[in-house]
């Protein structure tokens, strides 16, 4: 049922509301739903976090294993991000091979983490060309009510921030130690509804949206990654404004992830 067309009167209503600065759930144009981050949610993982953005729930697990570096980066560890959109989480998801949405989700999350140099991959190298840590970031969508990208990215950041390198278990060190996280990128997704651009879109707003823009910012004031999705356009002024808004939300969300 992934291609169900929503009713035009519904879309029109959402856009009319946005024009008046309002939204279906009563939020303002730039308001987020409540965000909670629960690190260490999965005890058997090396790092994990359960993130709620409103009713959207995403669980991320981090696993560290000893592997072999890629031949072209003999001095660096390996970072792999994967996203699972299980059919239980939304009527639009179906079991089977990953849909384009899942691939986009994992790649957009991966890009922000990689581009911000969240983890210094050279520190994950144990013996050049032979041994390195492979870091798996596995994202599971538990409940999809919109804005999966931001929830998944927060979950990934939360899981990495509180991850432990299991050196003792793999016999490459005396003690386990916390994973060194150097930067804290946070993604903020916006959707165009008519002439307004709303933050933290719900599922209905994403469906009605005419263009989606994700901006990843880090704590040093850099824009580290962006992703444009859906059909629709943004003017240069709108992009600049959106980036400013992404910084404002980003600073707040960083504190949520780091403070807990």
């Amino acid at each position: 049922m992934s291609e169900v067309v929503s009713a035009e009167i519904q879309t029109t209503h959402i856009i009319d509301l946005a024009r008046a600065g309002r939204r279906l759930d009563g939020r303002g144009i730039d308001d987020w739903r409540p965000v909670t981050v629960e690190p260490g949610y999965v005890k058997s993982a090396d790092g994990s976090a359960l993130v709620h953005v409103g009713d959207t729930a995403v669980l991320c697990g981090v696993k560290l294993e000893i592997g072999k570096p890629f031949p072209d980066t003999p001095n660096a560890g390996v970072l792999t991000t994967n996203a699972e959109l299980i059919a239980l989480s939304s009527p639009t998801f179906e079991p089977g091979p990953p849909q384009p949405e899942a691939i986009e989700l994992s790649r957009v999350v991966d890009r922000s983490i990689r581009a911000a140099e969240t983890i210094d991959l050279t520190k994950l190298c144990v013996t050049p060309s032979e041994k390195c840590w492979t870091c798996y970031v596995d994202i599971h969508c538990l409940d999809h009510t919109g804005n999966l990208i931001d929830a998944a990215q927060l979950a990934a950041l939360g899981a990495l921030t509180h991850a432990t390198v299991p050196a003792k278990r793999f016999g490459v060190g005396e003690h386990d130690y916390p994973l060194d996280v150097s930067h804290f990128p946070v993604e903020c997704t916006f959707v165009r509804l008519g002439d307004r651009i709303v933050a933290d879109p719900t599922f209905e707003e994403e469906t009605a949206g005419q263009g989606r823009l994700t901006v990843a910012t880090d704590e040093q004031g850099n824009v580290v990654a962006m992703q444009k999705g859906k059909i629709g356009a943004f003017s240069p002024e709108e992009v600049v404004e959106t980036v400013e808004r992404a910084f404002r939300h980003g600073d707040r969300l960083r504190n949520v992830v780091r403070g807990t």
Partner: protein
Amino acid sequence: MGYATWREPFVRVVPFAGRYSPKPHDVIVGIVQDVQKTFWLLDIDASRWAPLHTSGTPWEPGPGELDEFLRVGDAVLVAVENLDATGKIGVTMKGEGLGKLSGGTLAGVSPAKIPRVIGKGGSMIHTITQLTGTQVAVGQNGRIWVDGNPDGILRVRECLRIIETEGQRSGLTERIEGFLRSTGPTDDTGPHPPRPESVDRRGPDRFEDDPSGPDDSPSIPSDESHEGEGPWET
């Protein structure tokens, strides 16, 4: 999960949630997904799409003219006509009150909660439409069409959310009524003027029990200032 009753050798389960399973004569809200030569395909939130044949409509379009009447994305109020053994769902638009839905918007609850939305003898839906000044058409498939001013529509959505989450508890109609009265009168200055009959029905007694007091009197021209009172603004 559901509510089970045993009557040997059968168990009857009324589910708390789940997809809509069509029954003959149900009035439902469908959304046009595809236009074919002689029928439209409607998404009715059931396990499959339902065809609406031209014979089931008041129109007589020639071949290829169907999208002059209904296009992809249009919402329609239809009735389930027949279900055959293969699971095909036949729907019709012929009947009182059925037809294309224009204006307003769609909201939704789980199909299992529809009896609570309507209430005993229509008491719940009557309370909601009266106190919000809206027009509502309830589809048995969980889709609900609402028309009125934007505030009224948002308050109806809030009511539906309460019914969805607290539908199992008793005294629901009273709770909804209390919620609607405590959140003040609707904003009559919205872009969609309320229907004449809904103005009459809401009458002056609407404000007598209003705990938010005379400040909410609709005679104050700038009703916009009251928008911040509802829980949807937080």
